[in-house]
């Protein structure tokens, strides 16, 4: 989707900043460096954290947690790619880790949903602000 916007953006930038600058940006957009991925990962992480902290529905909180995990995965993959470019010896470790994280996240989701169901059966709610058992 980003790629479809690029010509439009390129056009707009061309008008604003000139061709050299546009060429640079075009190159940067087609060859994103590590920082782009890290920024996106950070944004995802912050969105996830915000979701965890603000949403009342426990399902949504789970989904936010998935976002956090995926932010981490993105970082793993980004570093993997970065290391591949710089020719490091163990560049695939990040990707493997990502696979692990996805598996663990799937398991966690399964267990978490089971817990949610059990919780609902007992408390008849999935709103976390109504569940203050940690106080006791």
């Amino acid at each position, binding site marked *: 989707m980003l790629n479809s916007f690029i010509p439009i953006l390129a056009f707009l930038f061309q008008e604003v900043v000139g061709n050299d600058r546009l060429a640079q940006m075009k190159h940067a957009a087609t060859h994103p460096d590590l920082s782009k991925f890290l920024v996106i990962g950070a944004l995802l992480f912050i969105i996830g*954290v915000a979701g*965890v*902290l*603000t949403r009342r529905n426990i399902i949504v*909180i789970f989904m936010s947690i998935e976002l956090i995990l995926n932010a981490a995965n993105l970082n793993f993959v980004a570093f993997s790619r970065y290391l591949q470019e710089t020719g490091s010896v163990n560049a695939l470790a990040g990707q493997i880790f990502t696979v692990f994280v996805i598996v663990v996240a799937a398991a966690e989701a399964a267990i978490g949903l089971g817990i949610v169901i059990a919780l609902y059966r007992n408390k008849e709610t999935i709103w*976390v*602000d109504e*569940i*203050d*058992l*940690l*106080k*006791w």
Partner: protein
Amino acid sequence: MYKYIWLVPLLPLLGAAINGLLGRKLRFSETVIGGIAVGSVALAFLISVVAVYSYGFGSHAQWPNPYLTSQDGFSFNWIPGGAVSINQGLHERSAVEAQKQAAERFAAMTPEERAQYQGVFVAGNTSPRYALLNIEWSYQLDPLSSIFMLVVTGVGLCIFIFATGYMHGETGFYRFFAYMGLFMFAMLVLVMGSNFLMMFVGWEGVGLCSYLLIGYYFDRQEAANASRKAFITNRVGDFGFALAIFGIIAVFGSAQYTEVFDQARAFPREPLGQWGVLSWIALGLFIGACGKSAQLPLHVWLPDAMAGPTPVSALIHAATMVTAGLYMVTRTNVIFQHSQTMLLVVALVGAATAIFAATIGITQNDIKKVLAYSTVSQLGFMFMACGVGAFVIAIFHVMTHAFFKALMFLGAGSVIHGMHHEQDMRRMGGLKKYMPYTYWTFFAGWLAICGIIPFSGFWSKDEILWNAASTTQIPLGWLIWLVGTIAAICTAFYMTRLMAMTFWGRERFLEAHAGGEADEAHASAYDKGLAPHDAVHPAAGDRPRHQPGEHVGPVHEDVAHHVTTHGHADEDHGHHHGAHIPHESPPSMWVPLVVLAILATIGGFVGVGPAFNFITGAEHPGGRLNIVNWLNPIIWDPATGDFKHAEGGHGEAAESHESAPVAASEHGSAPISHGFNLAHAVDNVVHSHLLTEWIFIIISLIAAGIGILLGFLFYVWRPALPNIWAQRLRPLYHASYNKYWVDEFYGWAITRRTMDAARAVFTFDFKIVDGIVNGLATVSRGFSRVVGGVDKYFVDGLVNTIGAFIVRLMSPLLRAAQTGLTQNYALVMVLGLMIAVAAFFARDIATALRNMFAAIM
């Protein structure tokens, strides 16, 4: 050979240890236990005989000098003491002698000891005031201890053999012989020790064994009480004895006999009424002797001691232990003879005891009680002899009395055994037919104790009476002679009564309820609500071996048929004869009786008196075999101020006062003569010394005859007379029957007072001492309540106020933090993380911000 005498006490101890420690665990049979006990005593007897023979008659005979095992190294340093102050002993001796002795001791010291005592011995040049007290455990063989060794082991052997038969079937068979062996050990230590402390150890040892054996049937209240009574009464005497030993050590600086007597003989004699140091020592010793030998104020335990088994009564309470007092008095005769006052006291107490116990013996119905009072009476005779200065004769009477009284006690045991534990003479009678051995041996004992001429009792008792009449040592000899003669009449009377009621006359055991009235013990048991045992009253004798409720006494035939279960532990009891026909005892019982009977018959010939010198040709015939000659070297002679000369029958001093006061006065040896002397008076009339002696012999024989004839008159020829005379002399009869109420008096005067005192002390303890303690507790409780209040209201209040304030202040904040909502915690975590990251990258962030501002500006 006699250096092995240390084995003599050791062997019975060994036997006792084997029996006592292993007998139960290994379940020894009676044969094994009896074999060990009898064997050890027999071996001890054998060694004693050999030792005494070689001491007196062997090729290296040391008689009359005392032999100590320490001479051959058979001793050990028992109580290594230190320097003791001797304030008096050495001062009384000449200063030269004292210096010499001190110098000798100093020379004999090791260098270390010398360094330690140098100052004492060298500085005290003129009169040494210190001696080395060093008490060693060594046995002494001398004329006196040799006689006691022979009597104790010899008579003891007979009694041990008897006891194997008598105690057959007892559950505590091993225990009995362990105690008996222990007793033999203690008694032998007593008589064989070479110093006062060994004597004291033996003294207490025999007291302990006496206690254990009286209380042999410890599950019976009467036996337990009797054993405690014996022990406590003896404590009174032992107190005096212990004080006397302290006095001896303080005065003489030694406890060794040889040393003490060597010093004591140099002391001046203390005449009548003067209480010098030796009188006080002698008083303490005599109090001890009174306790052990059951003399008048302290006699009460001996009759009660009959609650023990009969062999115990024979061994301990007739033949050996009760003569320990005589042994001690004779051993210390140097001290006693130095105090005329104490001699008189001894004689008077002895005479009083003799007549007192003899009159009680007349009315007792329990066969063992009669013999017990007879023993007390005979011990009184012996003390009488000591008191008039005839110590040798006292020991002579100890010996003969050991023979005939052990014989009679064992005979009584045989009768009790044969009568199935019947002790009441009123239910006996006619036993002559059923128990011939017992009867004829008892017959010999009867003649001996009555004092019929060839029997042993005559020789010693007659000598006692003669010495009492002729004494020059103390005044009032005639009174003592008179009392002794009356006591002798009583003795003959009650022994004849015993013979008649037991062996002669109607066979009352065949008659139902022949005894009629119950014994006082029976009655007292009844009063106390105890179930009195049928026929065998529990107080005065052996454990009834019958089943409770079983009729054991004289029975009709129909009653006998009902008695189907016969609870004898003893198989041959009761089964072979229907009703309780008495039976003769087994050979293990009558053989010792025969041996003792022979001794009781001929035992007196070792002391044939000077009155028979027209037959024997000598004052004391037989040389050393005569007991007077044998013992004289240990007797201090006030006439010469030294020990008597050894060679009996020949030395002039040996005869000086023992036999012939008239001769002594002729020798001019200055006897102390006070007032009326009976022998002198008679002598002045008949003008013949020999005739005088014979007059007294005939008087004593007549006394015995009167007693015997009265006994026959009352109990054989005219059996109705006793009741008539008991009615006529009712107060006297009651006084005698109730033993002059001495027990009741002691109970009132001492036991009750002691209990009152104990109660008062208890009250003091309860009210005052406990009151103080409890008061302190109350005070401290009040104090603690105050402190508690301060703590509670002030300290706690302070803490609570401040604490509550802080808590009240902080709690809303803290409570607000704890929402219980997961998201809040997560938020805090995120914030914390952010703060941490910010802190970690603070510098970078600051730089970035600065750059940003710079870029903007």
